[in-house]
């Protein structure tokens, strides 16, 4: 396995598995905070949902480690669909499955290929959930992340820098959901009262993107 790929090197199965590890750890740590965010404008389960899904995904992937980055993403996506429930299960499941499928059977892919896969996944989320940017959903972190990654790659950044840019944009996007009025998901029932609270799904999306950036940084990718 390619434990420490050189800067700019391709993204392989081991990389995605390290991401899964990091993401699962972060979700575990932030679960209570995510549930807390889901209390005033939701039903107080987002952290529990995400934790359940990532525990299951990590276990499944550890037991039968797929050997392409695409297959790992598909496996994680399938686990999320089968264990999370709620809105976030099918949405995150679709994000990762679409991204994984887009990567095909390649044993390793470039940052640009990875960006294209993420874009396919994010488009899948938008299509499935019918939400648009500004609706106060996870898309408000995901769209900016893909855009920032694109921009960085176009400007010549390596994988790690491009993913770091994506993470920063996702974070910003999540924070920027606070003043928005929700139009999709459970928070939309609150109407005006959804204003002033950060969206839990956008927050978890930023965590997942940041986990990619951290994985790349630690790998020196």
């Amino acid at each position, binding site marked *: 396995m390619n434990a420490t790929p050189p800067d700019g090197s391709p993204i392989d199965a081991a990389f995605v598995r390290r991401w899964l590890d990091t993401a699962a750890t972060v979700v575990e740590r932030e679960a209570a905070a995510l549930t807390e965010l889901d209390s005033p404008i939701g039903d*107080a*389960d987002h952290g*529990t949902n995400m934790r359940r899904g990532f525990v299951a995904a990590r276990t499944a992937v550890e037991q039968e480690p797929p050997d392409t980055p695409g297959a790992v993403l598909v496996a994680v996506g399938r686990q999320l669909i089968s264990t999370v*429930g709620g809105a976030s299960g099918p949405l995150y499941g679709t994000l990762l499955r679409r991204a994984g499928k887009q990567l095909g059977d390649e044993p390793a892919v470039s940052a640009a290929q990875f960006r294209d896969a993420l874009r396919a996944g994010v488009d899948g989320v938008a299509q499935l959930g019918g939400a648009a940017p500004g609706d106060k959903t996870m898309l408000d972190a995901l769209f900016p992340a893909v855009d920032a990654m694109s921009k960085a790659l176009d400007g010549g950044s390596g994988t790690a820098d491009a993913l770091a840019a994506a993470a920063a944009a996702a974070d910003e996007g999540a924070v920027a959901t606070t003043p928005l009025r929700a*139009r999709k998901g*459970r928070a939309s029932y609150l109407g005006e009262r959804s204003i002033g609270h950060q969206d839990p799904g956008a927050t978890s999306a930023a965590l997942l993107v940041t986990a990619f950036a951290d994985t790349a940084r630690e790998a020196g990718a």
Partner: protein
Amino acid sequence: MKMLINVPETVVADALRGIAAAHPDLVVDVEHRVIVRKGAPFEGKVGLVSGGGSGHEPLHGGFVGRGMLTAACPGEVFTSPVPDQMARAAAAVDSGAGVLFIVKNYTGDVLNFDMAAELAEDEGVQIAKVLVNDDVAVVDSLYTAGRRGTGATLFVEKIAGAAAEEGAPLDRVAALARQVNESSRSFGVALTACSTPAKGGPTFDLPDGELELGIGIHGEPGRERRPMMTSGEIADFSVDAILEDLRPDAPVLALVNGMGATPLLELYGFAAEVHRVLAERKVPVARTLVGNYVTSLDMAGCSVTLCQADEELLRLYDAPVETPGLSWGN
């Protein structure tokens, strides 16, 4: 917040073991979280599958039995079930006559049932779906995920269940279910927030002198907070909110539903006020059901659901039903 539980993680599995222990007429798959009526599939009969987050008991598991649901899929507390559950349930209840999915209109439920329908159809099961969206508290549907499914679910499950029991074909059962949904409206009020096991405390703050108008059944806050009102004032407000949207031209079925922690004594008093308002508004009432049917864990509060019922709906509503949560006329 104290709860009668072991650990939050096993709440749903523990409850399923209890349902299995108490109801020999139900086949409970604790591992895969599916509750099926014993003897299913029933030759020539449409299967009815519903499901949703746990915490609304007796909905849905308590409505599995003769004349109502054929199977139910409980998710985690306030979290829609996963597609695998509904696909498994569909396979268990399909006699070849097809299966109706009864889905409350929440993003999570809709997405997970949609995925389940794809899985089931891949296995050759014919699936129809009905979306329940009766909650008039959700206005402005351009800017929301649409109206929530709440109390009307009981009427949909009861009436579609009676039709399926009589051997009606899938398109007829589905059409009846849609008619019931379109004829039903609900409005709910919370006096307290509920506490989920995972959170271990109330899901929102509601000071002592105030109530939430227009709540859902997931511990979400409502659309508006007001100083505490009397039972009569709440009845006026709730019924009027419904009648603004639905002017019944037939006698109504009325569900006066408790959210969980409101004593039955109070619910009956509230039912009297609902009847008073309906009489004042000249809406005749055909049937009244009072109790905790579509709950929100330990929330104190109530909801009103009205369903305008033509003679066929009334006949199917009155038809025999024998489930843990609803039973009559057998």
